[in-house]
């Protein structure tokens, strides 16, 4: 202890200039309100911001200087022998110097903040460049610890390696480069897969490993190597690589394990996008023991065929403006986008896969799209349409030389496009509420011809399209708050306004087979089946409470979930019914099960039968036996 205290005192005496200089720098912050750009700002805020900036500057610069001069100069000039010829233990020499340097750094950092805090008469606060505002003392101190724990010992290690020039230091430098590149490559892989949770776990473990390696390495360098530069370098190198190489190998293993998650590892499926026909779906959810990582798959559950989709959950990716994956109407083809590198990268390459091939193989098209583009596959999957800024491009996937482009109306912020029946036209649904809500349907003949506007509605509207793509129903509340129901024949372009039957809700959806489903959005649950002209055929029970419509597992049946209460969400006693559309009979199928999709899937397709419970596990309904089978998620 005598040696430790002597070394600490010696270091504090030798380096008193650091805190003195820091105080002088802190006083500079008081003059910040005089700067030209600070006019009109509250002086206390300007001083605090200036003190924060100087705080980080001083911390980083002093951290590097103190770290680089911790032992580097003495080792280079072979002066450590002076201390090792005294009754000072190795740990006391290392601990005394490192401890004194940390104390000097902390004191210097605090002294930078002190003048501004005294003038403002409030406790010092930190501002991080990335925090967007001042942080409390505890949080700021937590961030600041990186400087004494990583930056300072890192500067010491680098200076030692540079000065020693031994074979050990050369090996260490090469390994630093190798490990750095490996960590970058592995981290980039996780980031590109949007595996931010596992990346954070790995970063935390690596940060601890780096701190242990740097602090432990520098301690071993002095305690084991003593005055010998060569032995010190060897000790430093052995500790550095003894910690960092296993940590990097562990990171590689963790990364491979995380990214190797298959559909069977999904604990639940919060994101499900079934194909309109067939039995493929896009699914994503948290994978087992992978720190919240949500891989995404194009999945066919029966034969368990799967294609891994890039960059994680497509719904999360859509939040940053990336197009969602899509299917052709017949379910035979799927497309998705692949960022070149990280998830924010642009442009995005289009990838398609024929799902009727076995096994299906992704085919990058060499076509790149921007985030704002609207995409659609033709019904048979042979053509891909892209619409951006009024330019429509139709790619012939089998014959790229037949691709063409033309002008077309834009789809607006919430619009969509799809190929018309037969593929001879493309529909552009223009939708948006800025400045007023508006829905417009344009038909664009292909490959040329004048675009026609088939429908234009001002006001709130709910738009739905039949699974076959031949009809659309628009439920409108016009500016006078009068509900209306409009149907559009998407083959011939005929438009009709239907009278609402007595007691019917104003939201209508096309049923497979030609009828309409009418649902009230308010005053509890009310369902009614009408014919194509809006004439009431059948009122469906149950009535009252809350209700949600699912798909049609068969043309004559409909899935509905109902709760007797108006409360939505978990615990509302939801019951799933299969409703017979001819008789109106409702047969309960189970509690707390929800249809995944609503009317938009072809009857009998997997999407029309998919169910999910409140734990987001995925089930399949057998339309014949009405049995429910778990498809995905922890059982």
């Amino acid at each position, binding site marked *: 202890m005598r040696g430790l*205290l002597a070394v600490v005192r010696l270091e504090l005496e*030798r380096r008193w200039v650091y805190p003195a200089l820091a105080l002088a720098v802190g006083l500079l912050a008081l003059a910040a309100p005089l700067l030209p750009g600070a006019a009109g700002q509250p002086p206390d805020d300007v001083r605090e911001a200036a003190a924060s900036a100087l705080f980080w500057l001083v911390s980083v610069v002093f951290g590097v200087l103190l770290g680089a001069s911790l032992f580097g100069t003495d080792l280079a000039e*072979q*002066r450590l022998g002076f201390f090792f*010829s005294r*009754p000072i*233990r190795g740990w006391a020499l290392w601990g005394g110097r490192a401890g004194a340097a940390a104390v000097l750094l902390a004191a210097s950092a605090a002294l930078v903040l002190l003048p501004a805090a005294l003038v403002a008469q409030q406790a010092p606060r930190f501002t991080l460049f990335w925090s967007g505002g001042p942080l409390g003392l505890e949080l700021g101190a937590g961030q600041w610890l990186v400087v004494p724990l990583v930056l300072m010992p890192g500067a010491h290690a680098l200076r030692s390696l540079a000065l020693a020039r031994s074979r050990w230091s050369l090996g260490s430098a090469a390994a630093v480069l190798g490990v750095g590149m490996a960590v970058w490559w592995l981290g980039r892989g996780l980031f590109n897969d949007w595996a931010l949770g596992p990346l954070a776990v790995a970063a935390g473990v690596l940060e601890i490993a780096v701190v242990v390696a740097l602090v432990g390495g520098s301690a071993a360098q002095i305690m084991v190597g003593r*005055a*010998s530069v060569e*032995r010190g370098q060897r000790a430093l190198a052995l500790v550095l690589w003894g910690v960092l190489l296993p940590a990097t190998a562990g990171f590689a293993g963790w990364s491979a394990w995380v990214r190797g998650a298959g559909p069977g590892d999904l604990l639940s499926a919060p994101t499900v996008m079934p194909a309109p026909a067939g039995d493929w779906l896009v699914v994503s959810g948290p994978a087992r023991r992978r720190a919240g990582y949500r891989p995404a798959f194009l999945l066919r559950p029966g034969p368990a065929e799967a294609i891994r989709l890039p960059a994680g959950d497509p719904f999360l990716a859509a939040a940053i403006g990336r197009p969602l994956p899509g299917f052709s109407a017949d379910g035979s083809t799927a497309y998705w986008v692949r960022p070149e590198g990280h998830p924010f990268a642009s442009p995005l390459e289009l990838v398609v896969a024929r799902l009727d091939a076995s096994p299906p193989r992704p085919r990058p098209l060499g076509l790149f799209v921007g985030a704002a583009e609207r995409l659609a596959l033709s019904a048979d999957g042979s053509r891909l349409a892209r619409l951006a800024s009024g330019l429509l491009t139709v790619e012939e996937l089998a014959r790229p030389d037949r691709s063409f482009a033309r002008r077309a109306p834009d789809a607006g912020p919430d619009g969509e496009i799809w190929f018309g029946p037969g593929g001879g036209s493309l529909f552009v649904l223009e939708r948006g509420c800025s400045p007023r809500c508006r829905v417009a349907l344009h038909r664009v003949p292909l490959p040329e011809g004048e675009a026609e506007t088939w429908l234009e509605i001002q006001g709130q509207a709910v738009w739905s399209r039949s699974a076959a793509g031949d009809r659309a129903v628009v439920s409108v509340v016009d500016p006078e708050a009068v509900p209306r129901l409009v149907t559009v024949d998407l083959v011939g372009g005929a438009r009709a306004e239907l009278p609402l039957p007595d007691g019917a809700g104003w939201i209508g959806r096309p049923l497979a087979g030609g009828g309409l489903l009418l649902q009230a959005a308010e005053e509890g649950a009310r369902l009614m089946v009408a014919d194509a002209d809006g004439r009431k055929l059948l009122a469906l029970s149950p009535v009252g409470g809350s209700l949600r419509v699912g798909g049609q597992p068969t043309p004559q049946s409909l899935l509905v979930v109902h709760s007797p209460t108006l409360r939505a969400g978990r615990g509302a006693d939801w019951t799933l019914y299969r409703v017979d559309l001819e008789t109106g009979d409702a047969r309960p199928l189970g509690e707390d099960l929800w249809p995944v999709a609503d009317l938009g899937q072809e009857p009998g397709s997997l999407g029309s039968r998919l169910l999910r419970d409140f734990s987001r596990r995925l089930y399949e309904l057998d339309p014949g036996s009405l049995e429910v089978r778990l498809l995905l998620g922890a059982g």
Partner: protein
Amino acid sequence: MKHPEAGEPVVEIERLTVRYGPTTAVDGVTLEVAAGTVFALLGRNGAGKTSLVRCLLGHRRPQAGGARLFGADVWRHRASLLSRVGVVPEQPDMPPAMTAAGLGRFCARLYPSWDAAFYAERLRRLSVPADLPCGRLSRGQKGQLSLSLALAVRPALLVLDDPTLGLDPVARRSILDELIDELAERHTTVFLTTHGLADIEGLADRVAILTEGRLLLDEPLELLRQRVRRIELRQPAAAVDDRWLDGLRPLAIERHEWGVEAVVAEFDEARLAQLEPALDAGAVVVSGLTLEEIFVSLAGEGKREVQS
């Protein structure tokens, strides 16, 4: 702190081996220094002296063998053992920004036996500025400061690694005088390595010679002086029988116009008496060698024969 009893081993080095990669700097050296002895380790540049001292001070761990101070392993117990040891390194290694006064304060916190008054008085007497950074002191002042730091510890063992290296004759003499005074006063055990062989005449009790990492000899200086002698055969060189010369087992032979001069490592008066009758009366003159001459003869290039 109590000094060891006379004769008690203070330094024990056993089969000590130091290697730097493929080069062996110290090769299985074994030696012992008893309390109260002034032990001088001699050797040419690169003989391994500094490597041996580094092991002796626990700065370096030998590849084989070990060193003990006051009966304890120095690698394991370096810090506690060095509280009784004063060290003067080959190159002054004090932190250059520190003053002599600051170093004194630092050492006072480390050594229970620190004699602050002695230290201050010695610096004053030798005109070493107490408030000037060490980096700005002359080579001689640094040497004096280094010795002052070592002596103010009131050490039981003083380890001096070529302390006069690079000093002018006045500074060298001053340091040696101080050393002699210290020895006269306190009978401190001294482990000294040096190039200045003349300096240790009359100072060292025991000498050892290290050559290419191996210990060539280790014995009391007086015994060495008696053993290694110069024999001059003053009769024409042509008349000297080579068999006679070989009988002396000489280290070196030098032929002159007046006769032959031989240096022998094992002077044996009886043997010489047996050979003498074959020579002219008064032709044989036996004389002693200086330590430097002994060192050159023993640690030189091996047996040599020159014609002058």
